[in-house]
């Protein structure tokens, strides 16, 4: 009543715009994102929407950066790759596997698949982080990227399967040589980095960084490259902006996806046959089973031995003993709590993870944010020591085993190499 009209909470025009805007933000932040109109067509399973979504899912799911890789894949190969990737990740709907390989159908199912991926993890952020423009000199402090992954396994060359052990020795020697080269190159690279960082100290506009990185210096040396870098940076900024936009607006997308799911015919509940996907078979888990069993065996021996010694010993008697025992049990429980957590199913690692930008500071400079090299060095040293222990133990096992195997032979003298 009065002059004020009853105001609706949401202006319908705004509401109508919210969804396309949300989808527009989403598709801008994803690589090869289709237009909002394509999304709408996909909801109604229109065939013209399918190819765009196959492409999108391929870009999103394939491990390589989506620049040149997609060119080498035919559309059928892309479709198969998408299906495999989704199934490997556990996509729950069978309808996807039943879509034809020529990529002509399936808009709605693919839309559901995209939404499924988006719901399970922060997909736009992860994709952006993977293809991030690297402005600094970066080093990983965790062990993930210490060795580049070799890529798909090369087909075995030896057709006949017989190999001289000397070939193995030669390969091992070659490997050692490559490691030495790596070490030397790495040392040189660090020396050069140190120089570049110190020569450009004070040049960076960001005070917390202080000096230029190789990338930044390179862009000064080579303006054309610098322009390309700038363009990439600006593109990334646009995608970041779109991702933030998406995060603000995504609720309306999920409400809409609900309707999409409702529009699907219900799936038949009897299990249909699905092609097997290559996964680590149970046989491939055997080595780990054996290792754990071996560990269990060793622990059992150790525990039995010590318990016997304990029972036979003098400690642990008397009325106050049970209180002491309880206290000790608690202490041990607390001690091992972190280890237990790390071993349990969803244990996360406390170590720092991810790439870090290298920044050279003066030794006495005030503490800024960031990890300090001496701490990382400490952690790595203890890691190294542990691993060496493990390796020595394995080698010792081998030595014992070999000694056992050959020990029965009379008339031979085995002289071990010096320098133990």
């Amino acid at each position, binding site marked *: 009543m009065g002059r004020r009209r009853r105001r609706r909470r949401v202006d319908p025009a705004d509401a109508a715009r919210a969804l396309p805007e949300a989808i527009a933000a989403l598709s801008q932040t994803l690589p090869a994102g289709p237009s909002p109109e394509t999304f709408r067509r996909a909801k109604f399973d229109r065939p013209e929407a399918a190819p765009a979504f196959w492409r999108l899912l391929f870009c999103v799911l394939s491990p390589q950066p989506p620049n040149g890789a997609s060119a080498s894949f035919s559309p059928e190969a892309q479709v198969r790759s998408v299906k495999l990737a989704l199934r490997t*990740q556990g996509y729950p709907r069978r309808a996807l596997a039943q879509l034809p390989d020529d990529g002509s159908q399936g808009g709605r199912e693919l839309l559901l698949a995209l939404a499924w991926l988006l719901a399970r993890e922060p997909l736009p952020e992860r994709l952006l982080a993977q293809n991030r423009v690297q402005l600094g000199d970066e080093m990983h402090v965790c062990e993930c990227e210490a060795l580049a992954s070799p890529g798909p396994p090369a087909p075995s060359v030896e057709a006949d399967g017989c190999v001289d052990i000397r070939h193995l020795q030669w390969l091992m020697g070659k490997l050692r040589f490559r490691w030495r080269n790596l070490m030397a190159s790495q040392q040189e690279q660090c020396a050069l980095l140190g120089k570049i960082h110190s020569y450009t100290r004070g040049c960076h506009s960001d005070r917390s960084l202080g000096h230029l990185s190789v990338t930044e*210096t390179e862009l000064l040396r080579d303006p054309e490259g610098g322009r390309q870098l700038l363009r990439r940076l600006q593109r990334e900024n646009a995608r970041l902006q779109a991702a933030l936009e998406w*995060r603000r607006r995504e609720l309306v997308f999920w409400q809409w996806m609900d309707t999409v799911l409702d529009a699907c015919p219900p799936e038949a509940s009897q299990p249909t046959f699905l092609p097997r996907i290559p996964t680590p078979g149970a046989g491939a888990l055997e080595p780990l089973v054996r290792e754990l069993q071996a560990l269990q065996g060793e622990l059992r021996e150790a525990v039995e031995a010590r318990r016997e010694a304990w029972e036979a010993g003098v400690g642990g008697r008397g009325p106050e003993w049970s209180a002491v025992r309880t206290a000790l049990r608690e202490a041990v429980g607390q001690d091992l709590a972190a280890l237990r957590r790390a071993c349990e199913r969803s244990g996360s690692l406390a170590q720092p993870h991810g790439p870090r930008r290298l920044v050279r500071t003066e030794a006495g400079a005030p503490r800024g944010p960031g*990890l300090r090299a001496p701490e990382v060095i400490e952690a790595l040293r203890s890691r190294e020591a542990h691993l060496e222990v493990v390796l020595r133990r394995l080698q010792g096992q*081998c030595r014992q085993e070999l000694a056992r*195997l050959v020990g029965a032979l009379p*008339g031979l003298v085995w002289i071990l190499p010096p320098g133990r």
Partner: protein
Amino acid sequence: MLLAGSSRRLVAELRDALDSCAERQRQLERSLRVSRRLLRAWEPAETLAPEPTPGPETNEEAPSAACAPSPQDLKELELLTQALEKAVRVRKGISKAGEGDKAPSLKFGSIATSPATRASAPPSTSRRAGSRASETEPPRGIRQTRVPAKDLPEHRLLSVGDQACMGQGAGATKPESGLRNEQIVLSAASQAPEAFTLKDKGILLQLPEAFRKASSRNSRLWAQLSSTQTSDSVDAATTAKMQFLQKMQTTSGWPGSRLSATEVEAEVRHLQKACLLLRLRMGEELTADPKDWMQEYRCLLTLEELQAIVGQCLHRLRELCTVVEQQLGPWPEGRFPRASLPCGGEADPIWSPQLLLYSSTQELQTLASLRLRVAMLHQQIYLEKVLMAELLPLVSKQEPLGPPWLALCRAVHSLLCEGGQRFLTILREDKPAD
């Protein structure tokens, strides 16, 4: 000393290891090339090449650096040259030794005026379009830094310093590029370029304006992205997502809570990690020397607790084996993902890179070499296990105990026990001929 068919796996594993080393080496070589080039004198090679420019600016650009500068430019050049000469004189007086004859010819980026004489040679430093001969120092173009005592007093910098003689052609002051202002001024004057070296003049560099803006915007956006993970409106979306996933699951017709192959793989890797941690802990306990009976008992309790944890891990692993057998197919290759430990830290990803601070080159080298060493040890341990699994059975299986078998033993011993680096010697005791 031929080995049987299972050696294919050995060769494949070794080849994999070699390939990953080679890949790493390639990456390092690339970085080394770039870094070495940066530390050499920067080439003024583009002086002669015409700069390929995008359309609208073409008419403003001279095709090469050698085109005639305008009178205004010449005047500026004159002023700049004077400023340079003065700067060089001041520098010579301060720098430790005459490091070569720094001729007062124009060097790229070494246009510096001491704070006291800034008025005499106003460098035109602005990056904005059109404002070339400004009389005052625009705040951005020049870095005013308080001078560290041992450094050169002139930290002042011109925009020309950026480009370090790229010879781009006449510097049309496009606002967006900001990368080539006043090139004409310098490049025309740089008759005898004393090349720019990072060592001498690196501290005078400054990043171009457009880049700085883009880069700070970039870090701001990344920071925003990380922080939006924990805002309120996110919760509504999170709930909606959970509901959507559940609905997907229930409408799918498959039994719920199946483990996907990715999840199985991730869990197995996790258990591998756990196995290593447990073993390390066990090693610590076994080598510890208990001083009194309390410590002894504590050690016993710890070992028992470890045993329990191992039991649980084994149980979980067996469950996974069942899942794999029943639901997923066999893997054709029979090879399992790397034993190198990938990080599991996905709890709270921070998307933009954080910093790692080091204070000396020595430190950086130590850090890098330790990283490599740890990676190498991981690989060695993995290969050791593979070799053990394949070679030890061979030695035990072979019955003929003649020289070939001895040679095999020797080779296997070397590979397994000495990392392939040392060999043992086998002597045969002949019965005394009697």
